[in-house]
């Protein structure tokens, strides 16, 4: 994920280091190629295509379906997410910070409330809990967005008319050109060999 993926409108203003690497392939109209899209009309062929693409070693690709297909994450070779570890680490950090904050505050400026002993542990608990939950929630949400690349304001597939059927009755496999294994001819042949109804080259806009 690059900055330009999140904010395509910033592309002209970004320094060269943050720009996308130059496209390796040029499409039929002379624009850089963004990826290759294969269309299927049923779950079974798209499932098999997913396994083929997974076994070919692609990483920058996705499978689109109008409805959730249970178990397709195995066909796509998904690995377990690292998100729970981030949540746990930041949650425990938040709880620790919540404790330190109170310890520092009541150590420096002791206030007796309702005659309770200043050293009582009980009032610490809700604040430790809340600050743990708060930081855990922020970290989980932020890390989730960072890891799945959302929110994405635009994607070249959206301007490709046949792709609209991905919310109706068609299934798609899309391999991006930025994948190291991507090759305009051989990737197209691979997708055609999986029995796709049609295969299109998608160009940048």
């Amino acid at each position, binding site marked *: 994920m690059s900055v330009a993926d999140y904010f395509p409108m910033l592309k002209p203003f970004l320094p060269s280091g943050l720009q996308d690497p130059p496209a390796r392939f040029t499409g039929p109209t002379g624009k850089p190629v963004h990826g290759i899209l294969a269309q299927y009309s049923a779950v079974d062929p798209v499932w098999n295509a997913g396994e083929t693409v997974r076994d070919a070693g692609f990483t920058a690709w996705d499978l689109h379906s109008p409805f959730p297909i249970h178990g397709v*994450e195995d066909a796509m070779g998904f690995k377990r997410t690292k998100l*729970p570890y981030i949540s*746990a680490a930041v949650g425990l950090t938040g709880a620790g910070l919540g404790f330190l904050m109170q310890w520092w505050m009541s150590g420096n400026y002791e206030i007796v409330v309702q*005659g309770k002993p200043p050293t009582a542990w*009980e009032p610490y*608990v809700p604040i430790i809990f809340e600050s743990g939950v708060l930081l855990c929630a922020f970290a989980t949400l932020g890390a989730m967005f960072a890891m799945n690349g959302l929110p994405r304001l635009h994607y070249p597939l959206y301007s490709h008319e046949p792709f609209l059927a991905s919310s109706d009755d068609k299934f798609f496999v899309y391999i991006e050109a930025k994948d190291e294994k991507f090759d305009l001819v051989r990737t197209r042949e691979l997708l055609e060999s999986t029995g796709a109804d049609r295969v299109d080259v998608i160009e940048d806009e």
Partner: protein
Amino acid sequence: MSQIDAYQRQLEAVARHPAMSDDNIHVRKGALDAPSNVLIVLGIVGLLATGALAMIFNVKHALAAYEVGVFTVTAFSLGGMFWTMVFYLVNAGWTGTIRRQLENLMMMLPVCLAMIAVIVVVELASGGVLLSWMGIDPATDHLLDVKKGFLNEPFFVVRFFIYAGLWMFLATSLWRNSIHQDATGDRMLTRKSRFMSAWGLPVFALSLAFFAFDFLMAMDYRFFSTMWGVYFFASCALGSIAVTLLILCILRSLGLLTGLVTKEHTHDLGKLLFGFTVFWAYIAFSQYFLIWYSNIPEETAWYVNRKVGGWENVATLLVIGHFIIPFLILLFRDIKRNVAGAAILAAWIILMIVLDFLWIVRPMVYVGDMLDANPGPTGWILDIAAIVGVLGIWFGFLLKRIAREPLVAKNDPRMPEALGHRNYV
């Protein structure tokens, strides 16, 4: 017509499933006899020892130790009924292969109610040895005087019969439907049970809360906590899942239920275990925190009695053993998907629930009698004898019950979903 045909084909497909073979869903005849007989003998010995020590040592102490065991197993049985109704009500597909074990817990309610009836008889005969309000004239105590409309012997007995009647009706009706469905495959029985669960759950919630008020909270008639019913419910929901998980893991290790209760099912039961571990900690701390903060004497007295005489160490142990250890361990996915790991943790949580009830009930014996707060080794022998006695009887009869019927509700309409259950994460 075609829908009925399709359903009939589904039933046949489930019956033909290789995991549904007879030797996979039935305990081999006599296989559980030895352990269940050992447990029942252990239970009888324990209860006889309790009775003997009640005569020669201390009736109040013996009754309290007996109540620790009785309320623990009652919590397990009530939790079994709770989950059975919840799973019917939300149409939980994955529970088709585990519901029978929860129903077995639920059908241990007659044993529990018989043991509670003993408590009622002893309390009435002794003039309130633990339920001290029975032995106090309301005219002499304002705090009891304002509660005498509720805390009086006739109403107490009536309430006990109301709880017993409601629970027996719900449990036997749900059980009859389930067993009947095993034979006939009639899916309307599931709808009947679901309808019953819809009105049964609120009725169950209220009766459970008032049961906890009557038998546990009223041991100190001055004490009140609106969280008390929830506190008891937390043990019900958590304990029944722990017992179910333990039993399923034992059955799995006997080579039964292969392909029916997979690591996906233990994973989901482990999630419930995790959730209700946190739930218990949350409401137990909230109850303590609010009482500590508001500092009203008739409420704080309950906790003060449990912060002396060594009980403060039990409280610390509960915080660590009932919450922190299971919380940290159950965070890990692989533990919940491992039969041995899940079984050990479930057994640990059962132990902690016993300890929780010990901490609730036992300090009441020597309240206001601090010099005698440490009854010495005889007291602890009595505690262990009574707890082992009650738990032995309950688990012994539970094993007998498990061996009697098929281990899964084999004609449940949600069976295909339960057979193919998976966690998609």
